[in-house]
């Protein structure tokens, strides 16, 4: 492992200044993605700039809308008493991230900025239609998460920007969600995953949000499936249709974790099962 310098700035400005000054430097949050890449020789940064000591980056605020600091750990998401009610989907996804040791250091910001198609939090935040607040020396900007992911490992951030917060609007009381993840073993990166959120009015689906992981270069919203469901009375027949559509609308690859064919299968099955689970149909 190449040696690198390590900085612990005390403010956002200081962090951004350092980043500008030191070529080939990287921000580090929990390091659970970054250190793996450095040890594996994929990245050889000259310096790491830790975001750990910057005030306010690791807090959760809920008043009307929800603000989650980028440095909030996955464990803190799970144990926040209000988040469980206001954004259950995020907490459900958080529970499926890694092991307790990983969750204790891994951050929300890291999960998003690493831009992996399998990122569990990214998936649920996509479905929750979160906004990302991005800060640079020249100012602040809010980006819908849908526009955040560009390609594997690449977000819309430029090197001189920091993700500071995530904003989520609270969901209405007739909203239900599920997070389903298939790993080779229980503790694993997703072979395929689905986050699903429905806002129901009696039998009728008013709003549907569906996203799938590990089936495209980036965490993917399945908008076709959403359109299929919205405004409809949900039935097992429609769920079958949604299953097929989900399988067909993704673009997975075959790799060491799973085959293309298998990933399509799982995404379809999970969309169907997610619907069944939310609507209390039992196993279909």
């Amino acid at each position, binding site marked *: 492992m190449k*040696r690198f310098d390590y900085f612990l700035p005390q403010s956002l400005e200081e962090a951004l200044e350092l980043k500008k000054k030191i070529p080939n430097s990287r921000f580090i949050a929990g390091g659970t993605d970054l250190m793996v890449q450095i040890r594996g020789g994929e990245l050889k940064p000259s310096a790491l700039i830790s975001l750990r000591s910057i005030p306010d980056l690791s807090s959760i605020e809920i008043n009307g809308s929800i603000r989650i600091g980028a440095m909030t750990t996955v464990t803190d998401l799970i144990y926040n008493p209000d988040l469980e009610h206001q954004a259950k989907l995020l907490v459900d996804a958080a529970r499926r991230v890694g092991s307790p040791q990983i969750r204790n250091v891994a951050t929300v910001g890291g999960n998003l900025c690493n831009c992996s198609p399998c990122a569990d939090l990214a998936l649920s935040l996509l479905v929750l239609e979160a906004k990302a607040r991005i800060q640079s020396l020249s100012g602040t900007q809010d980006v819908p998460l849908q526009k955040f992911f560009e390609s594997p490992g690449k977000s819309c951030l430029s090197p001189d920007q920091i993700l500071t917060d995530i904003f989520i609007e609270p969901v209405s009381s007739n909203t239900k969600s599920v997070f389903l993840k298939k790993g*080779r*073993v*229980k*503790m694993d*990166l997703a072979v395929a995953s689905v986050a699903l959120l429905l806002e129901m009015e009696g039998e009728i689906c008013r709003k549907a949000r569906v996203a799938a992981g590990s089936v495209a270069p980036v965490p993917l919203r399945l908008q076709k499936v959403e359109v299929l469901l919205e405004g409809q009375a949900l039935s097992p027949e429609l769920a079958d249709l949604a299953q097929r559509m989900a399988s067909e609308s993704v673009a997975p690859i075959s790799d060491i974790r799973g085959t293309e064919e*298998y990933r399509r299968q799982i995404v379809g099955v999970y969309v169907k099962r997610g619907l069944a689970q939310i609507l209390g149909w039992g196993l279909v």
Partner: protein
Amino acid sequence: MTDFRFIGKRISRPDGPDKAAGKAHYIHDLKRPGMLFGKIKFSQHAFARIKHIDTSKAERIPGVKAVITAQNTPEIRIGFLRDNFALKKEKVRQYRDEVAAVAAIDPDIAEEAVEQIRVEYEIQPGIFSPDEALQKGAPLIHENDSRGRARTDNIVPIKFHHESGDLGAGRRSAKYMVEGEYSTPLVQQSCMGTAGCIAEFDMNRNLTLWAKTQIPFLAQRDFNRALSDMGLQDKNTRVIVPTLGGAFGTGLDTHTYEYITILLAFRTGHPVKILYSREEEFAYLSPRQSSQIRILQGCDSNGKLVFRKVEVLQDNGAYTSWGATYPSVMMLPATSLYRVPNVFFDARLVYTNNTYCQAMRGYGNPELTWALESNLDELAEEAGIDSYELRRLNCNLPGETTPMGLKISTCGLKESLESVVKKIEWKKKHKKGKNRGVGMASLIHVGGGARIYKSDASGIILKLDDFGNVYVYHGGVEMGQGLHAVLTTAVAEALGVRPEKVFINPTDTGTCPWDVGTHASRGTFMAGNATLLAADKLRTKIFELATDVYPREVKKSLEKYRKKNPGYQPPEIDFKKAARLENFDIKDGYLSIKDGPAEPWLNLELGRFLRAVHFRSQGQMLTAEAFYDPPNELPDFEKGYGNISATYVYGTQGVEVEVDTETGEVKILRLTAAHEVGKVLNPEGLKGQIYGALAQGIGYALYEELKTEKGRILNPNFKDYKIPTIQEMDFPIDLDFIEIADEFGPFGAKGIAEPGLVPTAPAIANAIYDAVGVRIRDLPITPEKVLAELKKLERR
């Protein structure tokens, strides 16, 4: 039945607290003054000629103390067939071949230096499967054998063959027969503690090697040979085994990295350590061989097995380790699991440019049993017989001699089958389908050592000090399996002291007597028997001295007792008569007269006795040694005949699964394992062995596989090489230990270290078939494979 004081009781592991508290010293923790760090440059080509190695840049890096290649070091040939070299000179034959190495003052510098070594290769097309390797005109992986004779094919020159009865006649008498081909993947032992060693020469040019080994004495022999190759004739290696974080077979041979460390230490004059990272362990250490096994077996109309034909093809990789002798164990189930009169067994090992392989727990048995017990269920289906009934009908029996010449002393196969059938509720659940199913599989394994070397012995020394402590010097290796707990219990029981008074010394060829190695489930059996012999000698010595010393000492005790208890009237004891050799006993660390009156002063504390023996004119200190060599035979493997072990163990596992037909996932609902153990010595240790083995067996069945592409391992890390964690073991496990005391076993016990993982995979495969009618013959049973087969079934 004998009443035991400690055997069979719950005792705590002597090595437990230090390990739990992080105080135990693994190779990772060890440092020697002035120690350097070594690092190896691996080829990264599976088959190529080395044209040139440029080490000049690496040599110039500050902190680098030596850069070695085959060009500037003596040639060291290694391996079971001596077809491997510590450093490769002309050719690389596998992706992980060692072409150079560095010693530097810290690991980062060593790593940087290795990166700076430039090697020019002329790449050749490689061979990556046994089938390719066997084709006419296939390139030769080795053009010559170790004696320089030209080779003409890629077949490894070791023969394993067995024929008994009349296969043709057996076949003709069969009413039903089933043929199948089954395969198993490369899997990694996945030790928690990665591989590593420290080599240090003294000024007399003798070597001390701290090594992660299971065979310290065979390793000593190998290393001494290397010293002589290095021009150090008649020099010696002392092998010291630090605390091991698991071995699972990885320590059953000496390794290239060890020889390279030795070369670096000799070149620099400093102690040198090489420690593998997790990725190096995965990519550059030898895994379990992959295999293809073809089985044809048949039964008559009543379900009696009448013949069995087994053909094994093993991908040996580029070089040959001890692990190549897997078929020596494969022969056991092939010839001796159930009664089969006409048997044919043949194993072929083939060189390829894949990673070379070595031993792993079970040593060929999980592979063969996977094939055999899957095929047996298929035969039951074909014959329309319940697969449990088929097994029971062909059950081995105590007292029989099998076609391979195995003498079955005790046999608990029938009991284990019955246990599983009851506990898994076979009659209620078998063939009830609907995505849930039950399956079972049985096993035979060695349980009384395994003579695969000219000696299968194990020595022990018991040394007493002035305080009644017993120091144990034994060549067996504690690698997490609980050998030290068993040794402690055995010594305490056999000698008559308390377990707290027993101290097990580190395994060290400089202090411990010879032992062939901790493998083949032999540790407990050997250590136990050696202990019994040595303890008996020590007790005899004590009793001989006691005839004279005991009366004198207890009379002193009596005086003191009287002072404290005025008016006390001691019973009349005629010490001339009572203090006779055969009348003494030691219990809980006190010497006493058997069946004597229960007077406290008659119990002589062992320490006091020993001091009395020591501190007198012509005093004595007591030790005893024993060398136990079991009554077994080195089989003739080309004929496939010989009683390899003093005794054998049988067992059966049953499992209930649920298959998700849309995702292909297999969920284990519960598992029951009935194993024959002779006698439970240490209940917690035994459970630990079986639980751990089951997890490994489940990994083998469902998850584990080293994937390769042209000889390169694609998943050299736990991110992509999946082993079960506690979350995969979230179902009830019911263990049943069948105790039938064996005449050869210490306290009746047999070895049970490996059997727990042997039948797990076929039991699961059989349960999957019962659940959804899909037969997977290729491990691991991934959801993809199950789903693909389910789709085929649907289309039919």
